[in-house]
């Protein structure tokens, strides 16, 4: 066990991947000498050279598109998109090409490309630097989407994403890059399946499902609720596509109440999908409607008011109060 930040854990995961497989390479803007704007790739250029850690021109479609070509040739590219809001020039390549190549070829071609996207708010930045577009990608069949919330997952998820034969998008919670945690680099343990949700805290009165940057918020809300005598179960979803509905359903049936929290706008978001599925699967066990907590239907607001936008402990507690009131 080693203690490290999420950023360092991803760095170590990438290092292990580059070490283990000569056909792995990293691609992205400023990932070489600079080590990435968040220094996630720090030191890897010096260690593995410019052919393995490729500083690309500033062109997201070019990055994803050439990665697809490299994958068709048998390579395992890991692309870094600098910020969430800048993925859209590459959206076409991800959704019309990367996601569909396997199906289009009737299964004869695989494109195991990994796309790393720092996402979410809370860093006080300017426009396009704090978005949560995961639902836009989750709606596209052919993609897998995972998001770590702790250092151990961060280390293993990047390794597992590279090993997966399907294209995988790893949404990295940028405001948690400096969150430290224990990492066991010898064994993933319970993290062996990156597409399985984890019950982080057992409870009996209600369940809160969260992922990525909101997981620590959900845990803190559960702590606060406990002071009021409420026993709250907290689930880290971990995988946004596919979603581990079995784990969420089991919890909802157990507690009878479910709150889903994410930073992305509530409308059309992952929370709605979870609410609908759980309503189908556990309708007779629910004591209250599934309640969603998320961002508002607006462009991500300016940094000076992002605290009003981002779901916090109080917003989750308010949702729990409403749920428990039924």
């Amino acid at each position, binding site marked *: 066990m080693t203690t490290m930040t999420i950023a360092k854990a991803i760095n170590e995961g990438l290092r292990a991947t580059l070490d283990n497989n000569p056909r792995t390479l990293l691609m992205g803007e400023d990932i070489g000498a600079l080590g990435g704007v968040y220094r996630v790739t720090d030191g890897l250029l010096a260690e593995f050279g410019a052919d393995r850690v490729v500083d690309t021109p500033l062109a997201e479609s070019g990055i994803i*598109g050439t990665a697809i070509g490299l994958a068709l040739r048998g390579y395992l590219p890991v692309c870094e998109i600098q910020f969430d809001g800048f993925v859209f020039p590459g959206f076409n390549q991800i959704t019309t090409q990367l996601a569909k190549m396997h199906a289009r070829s009737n*299964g004869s071609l695989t494109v195991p490309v990994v796309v790393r996207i720092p996402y979410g708010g809370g860093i006080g930045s300017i426009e396009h630097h704090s978005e949560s577009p995961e639902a836009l990608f989750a709606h596209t*069949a052919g993609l897998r989407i995972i998001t770590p919330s702790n250092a151990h997952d961060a280390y293993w998820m990047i390794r597992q994403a590279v090993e997966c034969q399907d294209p995988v998008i790893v949404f990295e919670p940028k405001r948690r890059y400096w969150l430290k945690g224990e990492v066991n680099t010898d064994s993933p343990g319970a993290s062996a399946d990156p597409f399985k949700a984890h019950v982080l805290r057992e409870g009996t009165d209600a369940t809160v499902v969260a992922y990525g940057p909101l997981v620590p918020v959900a845990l803190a809300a559960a702590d606060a609720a406990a002071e009021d005598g409420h026993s709250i179960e907290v689930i880290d979803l971990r995988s946004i596509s596919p979603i581990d509905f079995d784990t969420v359903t089991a919890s909802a049936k157990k507690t009878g109440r479910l709150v889903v929290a994410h930073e992305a706008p509530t409308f059309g978001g992952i929370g709605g999908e979870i609410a609908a599925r759980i309503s189908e699967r556990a309708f007779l066990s629910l004591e209250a409607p599934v309640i969603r907590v998320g961002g508002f239907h607006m462009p991500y607001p300016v940094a000076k008011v992002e605290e009003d936008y981002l779901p916090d402990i109080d917003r989750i507690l308010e949702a729990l109060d409403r749920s428990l009131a039924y």
Partner: protein
Amino acid sequence: MGATHLPSTEFDQTAADDQLEAEAEAQLGSPAEPMVQLLAPDGTLGTDPVFSAYADRLDGKKLRGFYADMAKIRRFDVEATALQRQGQLALWVPLTGQEAAQIGSGRASQPQDYIFPTYREHGVALTRNVDLAELLRQFRGVSNGGWNPKDTNFHLYTLVLAAQTPHAVGYAMGIQRDQKLAAAAVAADAAADRPAEPKAAVMVYFGDGASSEGDVHESMVFAASYNAPVVFFCQNNHWAISVPSSVQTRIPLSNRAKGYGFPGIRVDGNDAIAVHAVTEWALEHAREGNGPVLIEAFTYRVGAHTTADDPTKYRESAEETLWRAKDPLDRLEKYLRAQGLADDAYFDQVKADGDELAAYVRKTTYDLETPDIRTAFANTYVEAHPLVAEELAWFEEYSAGFAETPEHSAEPSSPDPDDAATGVAR
């Protein structure tokens, strides 16, 4: 060839060039630019200081092969158009007029090269030994692909304009890396007496319409940045559905290569000999590690963009007449006859072969089986996916509700031997 004499648009002029360029100027409304042409519309063979040497490699057999390929693919095009009109295909994308651009370039590639087509490269597919009937799977709506690219190094058609251009550059970057890894392996094991892998390049096709897409720009930036062994082959057929190329570019498209720092060559796209020579040069250039090349094949889409299109709404028939006079098949036939390389018997045989191909394609199209949607469930992801499994299970249960019971069925039910093959794939 040194860097001081890179083929670009700076070539010596011939009278035929002048004529063609004057016509181009009239059509494009921009200053004419030098263009490589060897075989003039009247069937006479000219010279070029760089590319005649490549044309000299072509013997009578190869030239007859070019003609046979062009005639076959034109016949195929006619047949596919007819199939669409008869409701057998959902759509067809005709290539008539572009046979020389496609056969000339495709025949210049080597088996180890990898080709990324757009959706009109039926002639290139022929040169890569793709079963032409396989091409029709996509247009009949029984597949989004239809062939395995690994069999022929001919990639699937791409319908999103220019999306395949960065794929080509990435694939070329992969070839570069493979060559480095192979060289390192040989160096590490100097005693090994292994045969060297043939050097390879990538060729990617797109049209003048697609040249407006950002992906073409980004792929050319990447190709230049990494000196990737890729040949960009732009078929300028003058029309992006109804928008003329003059709206999309103020300069010959080949000139854009200068901005990226690699050679750009405009070639008469209706001259199979010149197209072959230029492409052979470009692929050699790329394979030898000298980086990318852009070829603009100046040609014309004689027919509609697709069978859903009506070119009479946006262009004059006189323009089509002008280009029909530069027909790629006619001019090569004139040359073959004048040189005594082919006679009536040869051309009769080519026609018979074309009819045979058309009959084969027609029959094969009728026989294409509608796939089971379970194959789509199976091919969405490589690895097991719980949502797909859940929805497939629902579909199976739902479908089972429609199964005819023996008392309601006119025919006694019997087990379908294909059920095992089409059942749950994973």
